[in-house]
């Protein structure tokens, strides 16, 4: 399974890291959330292997903004690594509940946020409600990738 991660980023490339921590210093998620940040995830991945990192819930705070990768003096593909790790975690069923909930919201409604309050506001302003989105395909994708457990409907 770890191979799936090394397919995207060579482990040798991680050895380039000299822990200047410009990645964590650049990480918008690390500014607002309690997370070890890209540096410590990378080092953990190197020392303890991908299996250990996918246990970390904070892995999912990554917004894939690529700033860490952009500023890395050693040009390590940090975002690629984190993405690969998240993919591995999801394949292992290691997705945090709130991420699952977010996926479900998208798959069921086509939107990442709940909109009934928006609709109330739009009604008050005399606008049409946002209406429903066809989510059939989204649901198929979510089910196929294992992100969404099939509900017996």
């Amino acid at each position, binding site marked *: 399974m770890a191979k799936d991660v090394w397919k995207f980023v060579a482990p040798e490339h991680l050895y380039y890291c*000299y822990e200047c*921590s410009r990645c964590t*210093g*650049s*990480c918008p998620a690390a*500014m607002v959330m309690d997370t*070890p*940040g890209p540096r410590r995830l990378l080092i953990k991945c190197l020392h303890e292997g991908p299996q250990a990192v996918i246990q970390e819930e904070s892995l999912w705070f990554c917004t894939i903004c690529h700033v860490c990768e952009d500023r890395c003096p*050693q040009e390590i593909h940090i975002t690629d690594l984190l993405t690969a790790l998240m993919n591995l975690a999801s394949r292992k069923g290691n997705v945090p509940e709130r991420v699952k909930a977010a996926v479900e919201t998208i798959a069921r409604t086509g939107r990442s946020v709940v909109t009934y309050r928006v609709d109330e506001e739009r009604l008050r302003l005399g606008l049409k409600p946002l209406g429903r989105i066809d989510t059939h395909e989204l649901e198929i994708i979510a089910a196929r990738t294992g992100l969404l457990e099939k509900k017996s409907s």
Partner: protein
Amino acid sequence: MPEAEKKKSDNQERRVGVFVCHCGLNIGGVVDCKAVAEYAARLPDVVYAVDNLYTCSDPGQAQIKDAIAEHKLNRVVVASCTPRLHEPTFRATVAAAGLNPYLFEMANIREHCSWVHLHEKDGATEKAKDLIRMAVSRSRLLTPQTEIKVPVTRRALVLGGGVAGIQSALDLADSGYEVYLIERSASIGGRMAQIDKTFPTMDCSICILAPKMSEVGRHPNIHLMTLSELESVEGYVGNFKARVRRLARFVTNECTSCGDCVAECPQLTPDDFNAGLSTRRAIFIPFAQAVPSSYLIDMSLCLNKEGIIACDKCYQACQHHCIDYNQQDEILNLEVGTIIVATGMDVYDPTPLTEFGYRKFPNVLTSLEFERLINAGGPSGGNLIRPSDGGRPKRVAFLQCIGSRSYRSNVYCSSICCMNTIKDVLLIKEHWPETEVSVHYIDIRAYGKGFEELFRRARMEGVLFIRGLPGEIIEDYKTRNLTLIGEDTLQGEIYKKEVDMVILSVGLEPRQDSEAIQRLLNLSCAADGFFLEAHPKLRPVDTPVYGVFLAGCAEGPKDIKESVTQASAAASRANILMSAGEVTVEAITASVNPDRCMGCGLCEPVCPFKSIRLEGEGKERKAFIIEASCQGCGTCAAECQFGAIDMKHFNDQQILAQIDAATEKEPEKLVVAFCCNWCSYAGADFAGVSRMQYPTPVRIIRTMCSGRVSTRFIAEAFVKGAAAVLVSGCHPADCHYIDANLQTEKRVNKLWKRMEKAGLDPKRLQLAWISAAEGNRFAEKISEMNEIIQKVTPAEIQTSREFFRPKKKE
């Protein structure tokens, strides 16, 4: 060599002695040296073969001498390291035993074998046997050569007037040689003149430099030439002819540097010396202690351009009438014996690292700008002020490794920035102890004498050392204060730190125009762009070009002490050449056999040194080689269709013998590689030194230049059944023989076309430009070619054998 003696040695029976070196475990740990020596003993004409632990040691050399006497050896082959390292040693050994040094040959079984095939012991042993067989068959055809001695002009040229150039010039001048010191800018002094204090002693930089500068100015043996640039260099060791352009100063020597002119000048521009933090006029003196102590006019700024006098205010102000708007550039032709390159370095410009906001946020400065700010002679008179409001910063942060140790800028460590920052923080603490200072670092490298003590002092002063560089700097647009956001990796905590001023501790870079100097002098550059020394350990100030030496940061980042040390070393190396007064040069030159020469003239245009003349008319028209200027690349010999040009020590028979020997066993699984002595062979050596592993099936044949590799050699390799051929040389602009490798390219291009027409895979013939620093490139190339030869079928080999077989014309 007298003709009679030559004949005698030609007719002699060949008696070859082979010495296989274990080099401790360096070779012996991988290659079965005993078996190799036993194999060598059975080769034709080999009368003596032995393996020993260290051939280069005194007992090893004694063994060679004894064997020459005892077994009447007249050819000696040593299988050990690269000839670039010990060929001179062993040549001297055989010469001491009464043998002509050119009857010695080396097989490189360390850099090209044991070190690059560490895990393939059997393959390496077989390869070592092949390499020795190649060396033996070449050695049988070697002929004695006589080296010529050339006189060395007892004058030196020093390029660059920084502290390194100054030291070299003074050392040589004190030794009694005439020295031309050429400096591009208007004053000598270089970077050291810009710096405030020096570490670790905290001496005032200009105070210790200025006496040396004025000594240069008044030394009777030094011709100081500022505002001067090297335009061209010709010749060779001991006899260089340099052309120097001395730019007009527009102020005559009578200038007393009173400064009356400056007050009148209407033109302003940023002052380079103060890192652009202040302004200067069009007429100016670089700095107070400048040598020569004379003003000059910057004509790119002055209103009087192209001979039109639009403003003569400075002329009117000058009481001594030292201003001459009509001064012209001067061209000087200098004849010198040795050259010292002390061209220095540039400072990294951190503008591309946009997250730090340099040039966007006024209070983000570089370390060089900081040096000028804190210098009493600087724009603020030594007061630490914020550029945004002129206030004194209460909180200062230093960021380390800016532009160093990074694939986004320069990969190497600039080596001086850690100590420079520690010195800077101590200066702040010394003058304004209440200032909060933090240093954001990755590693602090305090490696030298007195460095760790200084680092400790900085910590004792309460300077905060925070491990981890900030990810970005954010500016408060009202207060112009800066917030650093980063992670303290030792605490594992995110910090947001507001400071008044940020200093980016920038690294050093090769000078932007160092390429021009590299071309002019035929030097080599390492991958980082600094000039390459002849040997990183044992010849650290020599260059591959005999008679040219390196000093200071031109060779790599270093501090003042190291620069001065190296400058003295370079001066002393140059001194050795000049005090000897003459030098022997290798007897590797071309000669024409008039009986074979048809006077076709093909050789004349390919000679990079214009050393071939065609003389006579009609049938009597023959090529003639000017031996004194022939550098021995062998391009002419490769071009000659009639085999009329004999390249001494690298003649056709010798190289063909090597090819035949290389392809004796299983040629269908081999790459025959031709590597030029200066770049590719050295690059292959570098792969060895760095232990870069590559597949064994490659057999390297050394030529002086890739231009020596004639179509005939490539054809021979294919006729003998080689799976692939690699021709490699210096990068086109770096050729040791100006542009001889362009002929190589032409030749290979032609062959590619012919191969394609004949239905042969042109990939089986490869051309690669590999520099002496590109060991990885060499290793990659061989791995790539190994893949190719795996796919070559026996049928294809047969086709190429037929195709390249010479057609009988005569």
